[in-house]
């Protein structure tokens, strides 16, 4: 490895040269920063400035570069030197733009800038250029779990892109729920009539595709490894278990209809009440002719009860809406009308949900004579040779009823996601404590596992709400918490076939991408392309397991000796493990306890009589840091005594940084991270939550140091807090003044 040669560049453009004493900054970089080479430039991001840096790299063997100019978020195209370690001293957005241009402010502004130069120099010296995860996998085969519409689509779309696919299906045939449908909701114009379910066509395409290997009557016995190098044991009924080398996984295990037996009010158990799937089987039996009930009587009148056991505010049944059922009932009402226009069909709904072009489908059903009535159904009872549906007609504002030969309940979707990991882990804990019932429950729960992941953190993908595998990211809907494992179709979120096929295609894209990046040793979203990866100095490890427990992505297992075993390609590079480690043995090449710690130490701490306190801000780089930047762009001034260090995630904040800072005479520490909890905004899902939990423990330490609790301030920050954040910083600075200077200064 080449010897470290450092260089610092001080930019004088954008008024930096006017507002700051550049010569003094050069001196700081040379003397305090101990940089081998220090240069200033009038316009560093210009072609000329960039050429100067490029020349130093190419001809002067400079390989560690501290650019002291604008924010790391600005001018990224210009300052793009991928082969060297780079730090950015934020003198523009972080200093001159948040300080007034006055004589009184000049001194503190200059001090601020000098500290940022010191910090940039310190950081870059602690950094290495990441070389990429060497532990890459080479498999480019996609595993699709579930042979329904979503699974078949994912398989075919991946194969079309040139990838090999292993498709496993629990039952003896492909097709899933869609195969049980007589017809499906139309997905293209004119949206007027039900269309062929499309299963036979997809099955034929799969049969004809040499890239797709299908296992029927098969389940996953075990999934070990990591993206690019999964080993998946496929257990085939009455056959040997086969192990497949897999690059990425799509879980498309679909749904089961909500059990209508739980709806006695709505006629569960009555012969003439069916759920939507039940009606599909009657329609298939009718084969386009008049639909007959189980007892053979031709149905002359039918009532559809929407939201049966769904949208249930009492939480006794499903709380959510399954999205497809309005259109499904419309479709099913058309089965009747198309076979015999004289059949009376009534759809009782409270909100008819036919988004997009489905509105045309709704109109088409009305045109065929389907009656839609906004009604809240009270109950369905057997009467005569059929049923009586009692309901409140919300338009006519009266309690009423109607009779029908058959009642169809729109019951909604229950995802087949496998056991809930939080519940499983809790039960596991009880079982390990010797609880016999818990032991049985664990066995029971494990039997429902879909993926049987051989992961320290449990056998399946964590669930979000209502048991679905959704991500809760609006901008990034596919991001599960298990790298290279994506959910598609109704297991991810309630949806109809058209959406499930679109979803499956998108999931296939993500899975292919994950395999490609795993092969190159690169991170997946949100730090896609990042070549850094965590390593642990195991000789210092105390086997406390905090890293393995806390990793939001289940990347870390334990080896036979109970040391943490990093599966780099499962890792998303958030640094939560690094933050969690009490003995600080985990680090990334370009982000470590040291890169941050060195910056903390580099700040010049004036003595207690200077009336110049110092506040350390550790700011999440995704939201808080951009908010501070934009505060600068808007010239929203804030206190000159703060020093800001961006962190990958609050989860990566190691408590040592805080205690070191306070010990070395900082007067306060502010943490700025994203919202956590159910509506979390943390891009590492649990990162900010774990970070905060960790910080909550530090108050005891403060007490031990005889420091006020307020010396540490934890702020929830959103990227839009451009006006409020400077105010909060100033308030905190005022609070520090109130408390007085830290007693640790100069110790």
């Amino acid at each position: 490895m080449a010897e470290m040669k450092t260089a610092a560049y001080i930019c004088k453009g954008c008024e930096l040269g006017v507002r700051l004493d550049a010569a003094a900054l050069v001196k700081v970089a040379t003397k305090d920063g101990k940089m081998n080479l220090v240069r200033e430039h009038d316009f560093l991001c210009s072609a000329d400035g960039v050429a100067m840096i490029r020349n130093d790299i190419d001809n002067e063997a400079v390989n560690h570069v501290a650019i002291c100019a604008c924010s790391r978020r600005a001018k990224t195209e210009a300052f793009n030197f991928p082969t060297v370690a780079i730090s950015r001293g934020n003198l523009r957005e972080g200093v001159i733009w948040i300080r007034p241009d006055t004589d009184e402010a000049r001194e503190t502004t200059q001090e601020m800038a000098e500290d940022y130069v010191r910090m940039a120099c310190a950081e870059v010296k602690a950094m290495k250029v990441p070389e990429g995860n060497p532990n890459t996998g080479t498999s480019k085969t996609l595993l699709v779990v579930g042979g329904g519409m979503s699974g078949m689509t994912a398989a075919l779309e991946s194969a079309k892109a040139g990838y090999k696919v292993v498709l496993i299906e629990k039952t003896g045939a492909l097709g899933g729920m869609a195969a049980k449908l007589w017809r499906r909701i139309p997905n293209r114009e004119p949206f007027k009539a039900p269309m062929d379910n499309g299963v036979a066509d997809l099955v034929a395409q799969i049969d004809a595709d040499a890239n797709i290997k299908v296992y029927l009557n098969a389940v996953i016995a075990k999934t070990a490894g990591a993206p690019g190098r999964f080993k998946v044991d496929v257990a085939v009924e009455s056959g040997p278990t086969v192990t497949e080398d897999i690059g990425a996984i799509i879980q498309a295990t679909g749904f089961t209809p909500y059990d209508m037996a739980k709806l006695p009010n709505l006629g569960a158990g009555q012969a003439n009440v069916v759920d939507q799937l039940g009606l599909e089987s009657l329609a298939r039996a009718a084969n386009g002719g008049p639909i007959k009930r189980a007892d053979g009587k031709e149905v002359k009148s039918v009532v559809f009860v929407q939201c049966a056991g769904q949208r249930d505010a009492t939480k006794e049944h499903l709380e959510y809406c399954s999205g497809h059922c309005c259109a499904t009932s419309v479709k099913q009402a058309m089965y009747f009308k198309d076979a015999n226009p004289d059949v009376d069909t009534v759809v009782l709904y409270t909100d008819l949900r036919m988004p997009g072009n489905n509105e045309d489908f709704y109109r088409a059903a009305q045109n065929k004579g389907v009656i839609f009535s906004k009604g809240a159904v009270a109950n369905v009872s057997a009467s005569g040779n059929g049923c009586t549906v009692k309901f409140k007609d919300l338009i006519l504002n009266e309690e009423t009823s109607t009779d029908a030969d058959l009642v169809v309940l729109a019951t909604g979707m229950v995802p087949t996601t496998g056991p809930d990991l939080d519940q499983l882990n809790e039960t596991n804990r009880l079982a390990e404590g010797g609880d016999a019932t818990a032991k049985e429950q664990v066995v029971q729960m494990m039997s429902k596992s879909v993926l049987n992941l051989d992961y320290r953190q449990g056998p399946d993908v964590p669930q979000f709400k209502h048991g679905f595998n959704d991500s809760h990211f609006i901008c990034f809907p596919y991001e599960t918490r298990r790298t290279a494992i994506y959910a598609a179709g109704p297991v991810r979120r309630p949806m109809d076939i058209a959406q499930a096929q679109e979803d499956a295609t998108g999931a296939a894209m993500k899975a292919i991408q994950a395999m490609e990046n795993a092969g190159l040793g690169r991170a997946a979203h949100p730090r896609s392309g990042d070549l850094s990866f965590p390593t642990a100095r195991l000789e210092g490890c105390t086997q406390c397991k905090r890293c393995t427990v806390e990793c939001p992505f289940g990347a870390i297992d334990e080896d036979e000796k109970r040391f943490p075993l990093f599966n780099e390609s499962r890792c998303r590079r958030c640094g939560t493990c690094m933050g969690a480690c009490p003995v600080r043995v985990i680090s990334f090449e370009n982000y470590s306890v040291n890169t941050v710690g060195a910056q903390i130490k580099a700040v010049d701490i004036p003595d207690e009589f200077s009336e110049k306190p110092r506040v350390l801000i550790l700011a999440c780089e995704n939201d808080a840091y951009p908010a501070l930047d934009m505060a600068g762009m808007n010239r929203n001034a804030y206190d000159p005594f703060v020093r800001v260090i961006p962190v990958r995630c609050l989860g990566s904040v190691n408590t040592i940084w805080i205690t070191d800072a306070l010990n070395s005479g900082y007067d306060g520490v502010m943490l700025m991270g994203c919202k956590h909890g159910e509506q979390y905004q943390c891009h590492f899902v649990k990162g900010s939550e774990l970070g905060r939990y960790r910080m909550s423990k530090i108050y005891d330490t403060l007490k031990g140091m005889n420091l006020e609790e307020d010396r540490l301030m934890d702020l929830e920050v959103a990227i839009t807090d451009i006006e409020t954040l400077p105010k909060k910083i100033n308030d905190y600075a005022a609070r520090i003044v109130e408390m007085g200077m830290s007693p640790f200064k100069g110790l």
Partner: protein
Amino acid sequence: MSDMNQQMTTRYKNNFLKEIEQQAEMGDWVKMCMQCGVCSGSCPTNFHPGWAHPPQEIFMMIRAGKRDEVLDSQSMWMCTSCYNCYVRCPRKLPITHIMHGIAEYAYRLGRAPKGQPTLHLSKTFWNNCTKSGRTNEVQLTQTLYFKDGIVSGIKKALVMQDVAIGLVKAGRLNIMEALGGGHKCKGAKGIHAMLAKARELENQRKGRAA
């Protein structure tokens, strides 16, 4: 028509809806209503004493099979033909015409409320204008006032006296019309013949007895 009055309807079944579709002018649009209520909110008379059932509710009542309530209702007769509902309906239902169609059908069945003033006006107007081919405004007004008998007619005429005097003064009420003078079509006979034929054809198309 009497057989139609014997029709039984069942709640939330299609039979009354189908009857309206076949018999009422533009009745085949009733099923297309999505119950947004824009017609009800657009009706000008709705905000003054108001109707019992605005259009969208009438449509729901038809779909719910409330045959008696619909046919006996005063509501359709409140339409001023202002076409507000018609132009605002998001489903492009010709609501003005549907309301007229339902009212007309109720009348044909003999179900329209007794003494319904708008129905009376409609009859009077049609008979007046088809008699000679052109409206005789004075006779029309007189007929209207005296529909409930002479005493009531005189009372109404007294109330309206100032209106009438104003018009006479302004030369806009032709006293000659009262005496059977005024404007007439030369081809009144032909008009009568063609209207009789039209009525016959319409009854045929709707399967009604002449």
